[in-house]
């Protein structure tokens, strides 16, 4: 049994932190795991992909078409991951748009319709959320990454079979040096949001 989770976004969005949280949860749960975040040179503000593989796994990256879950912190980055998806992949995407640097651009001008394009291109179990707004309401700027992880855990039972919400919650506690409580709450909130979108 195994679970292939692909996380994508832009450097600075907390993908490494998510990988670290999942890694910690894995070790505490006695699971085998492989995590590969961008190989080679990292570039600030550049594309980041993390391959998080849990259970009976060997290769450093997820084989094509075999991701069980995709967590995207930046909607456009999702398009760089489509080769890993199949019809059953649970896809959770933040509608956040980030230009080449560490800044967001409003999508009010509506071109193109990224969500529709995503559905057209094989993301069938798709949930797009304005995580920036949802988390922003909590009055602190971080935490979109942890919130979206909660959503995916709530939405996809497969992940929960290997890693319990409790294990992830306590990993959040031990990995995050700041705002651990707020992040745990966001994770719980995400779980609820994900569960109501289970499909």
């Amino acid at each position, binding site marked *: 049994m195994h679970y292939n989770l692909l996380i994508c976004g832009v450097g600075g969005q907390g993908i490494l932190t998510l990988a670290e949280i999942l890694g910690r949860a894995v*070790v505490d749960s006695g699971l085998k795991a492989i995590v590969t975040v961008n*190989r080679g040179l990292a570039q600030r503000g550049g*594309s980041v992909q993390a391959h998080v593989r849990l259970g009976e796994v060997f290769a450093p990256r997820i084989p*094509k078409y075999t991701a069980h879950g995709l967590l995207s912190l930046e909607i456009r980055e999702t398009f*760089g991951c489509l080769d890993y998806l*199949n019809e059953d992949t649970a896809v959770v995407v933040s509608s956040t748009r980030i230009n080449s640097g*560490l*800044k967001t651009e409003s999508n009010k001008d509506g071109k193109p319709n990224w969500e529709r394009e995503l559905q057209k291109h094989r993301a069938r179990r798709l949930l797009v959320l304005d995580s920036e707004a949802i988390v922003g309401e909590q009055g602190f700027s971080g935490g979109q990454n942890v919130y979206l992880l909660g959503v995916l855990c709530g939405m996809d039972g497969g992940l929960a079979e290997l890693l319990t919400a409790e294990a992830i919650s306590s990993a959040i506690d031990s990995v995050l040096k700041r705002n651990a409580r707020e992040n745990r709450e966001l994770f719980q909130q995400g779980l609820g949001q994900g569960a109501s979108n289970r499909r």
Partner: protein
Amino acid sequence: MARKIVLGNAAIAEAALASGVDVVTGYPGTPTSEVIPHLSEIILAEKLPVYVEWSVNEKVALDVAVAAAWAGKRALSTMKMAGLNVAADTLINVAYKGVRGALVLYVADDPGTHAGCTEQDSRHYAFLAQLPLLDAADPADAYRLTRLAFQTSEQLSLPVLLRATTNVAHTMGVIDGEPCYPVQRRGRDFHFQKRIEQYTTIEADRSEQHRQLLVKLESFVDAIRQQGLNRLEERGSMGVIASGVSWTYLQEAIYSFDLDVTSLKIDSPHPWPEETVRRLIEHADSILVLEEQEPILERMLKRSVADMSRPLRIMGKEDGTLPRAGEYDFEIVAEALSKLTGRRLGFPAASSAGAVIPQSLKPRRALTFCSGCPHRATYYIINRVIQKLGYRQDEVIVTGDIGCTSLGAFRPLRTLWTEVTMGAAIGLAHGFKAAGAPKPVIATLGDSTFFHSGIPPLVNAVQHGSDLTVIILDNRWTAMTGFQPNPNTGLSALGEPAKAVSIPRIVEALGIPCTVIDPFDVQASIDRITEIVRRRGVNVVVSKAECTLQKRRGDGVGTPYRILEQTCTNCGACLRSLACPAIEVADGLHRIDPAACSGCGLCVCVCPQDAIERVEG
């Protein structure tokens, strides 16, 4: 035993500490740079008596480690594949002399060229130097092989090469780490015995040393076989030989498709485990060889097969089953296994996989300097100097070097004409002059690169009366590989204060002028450098400003700038000429993200409307 999930490079660091390493040296280089920082963290936390240094270059790093190993200590030296080329002179010489303690040289290759160098296969060095090489497949394997490398190195008085590739070094896996402390260090006090006939080349019986080396290599095969290396798993008449990360793809395929193959994991391509390979050959009708980069195992296998005169089908790179360039992945290996087994192996493509994803949808993030990077300012200045001298940009040769400074080749600045190896900027610039370049030639390189290999070509240019301008972009850190300290930083690998070596004083000692400029004082710098480029002889400019990312961590950066909406005509000159990631266009308007802006003010110089100003207060 502590179960943890760590990077391949961290696994090597932990295994070195568990092996009681005494001296660690290295030069930063992707994908090996994480070993020394990880090790340093543990050394500081546990107050371990281990000496660590980021050496000035890889050859010096290896020299330092060799002396420690001769004195009975356990030493580790780390470097990327390009760095091994720099250290190769020492490596090949020391193979004859042997070691007394342990000497492990960790090198990482980069199939797929994620690290910006070539697909050099460093396994060749094991054959060239006639030294053993252990080839890691994943982080847990890297841990195991590092432990074994130290053990066999000391046991056989032989330096041992440990190799990984990017997909091993930069992958996190679970290891069962042993405690690094307290490690038994008794009996390993400093002891270097004067033996001129062993430690000098001129007095040594080199042929005899060569013979001894070959004997040691023989015993290495036996020593590691006893440890369960080069393991053969017999399951049928179809054989697979695999090493490195290819081994993990094979395991994934065996698990996913329930394959029956007889497999041999090659841990030591050199020395070649002939006996075990012969057992595989006896079993198999066909053998597939899975190895990235060069067909080294494949050719060794063919030699073994020829010696046994048994008809056998060998599949690999030379029959076109697998590619020689680029990295392997699961799909490539599954396809090769399909050819071996006659089964259709692979995961079904998604039904919509045929749909072409428009290129316009794919994310594109151009590689460029960070916001506030002083190098952007320096290259902008150089472009303006060329203009001011009355030349076009494609008339004045500007050579580049390794590291962050190489980004000066990218759009929109496109200042650099060449980028080859560490320090080559100066050697090439002099070469262009020697070959008769009629227009000015400018060499550019970073501070760490200058110390690494930039001093000898500068001395050479001075000696031979060259006419060129050398601009050293001094940002105080070896930034691209993760902000390691260099001789100019004033810090040790452990973060303790160290002597900062002055670049201007080195330059002045050569009897040539050295001018220090502030790249953010743009107009003055343009004037100054224009005047210097006009001069005869070798002239050095140090463009000095700390790496902005490091500055942000330290004393912070200046107040941000903003674009005045009423004055800005959205002409785009700022983005077009600088591509600063802090400048964005949202809803048709140019603006500066105050969180991303480092307050360098370079954009003020390029705005034709004077529409950029510092944020008040």
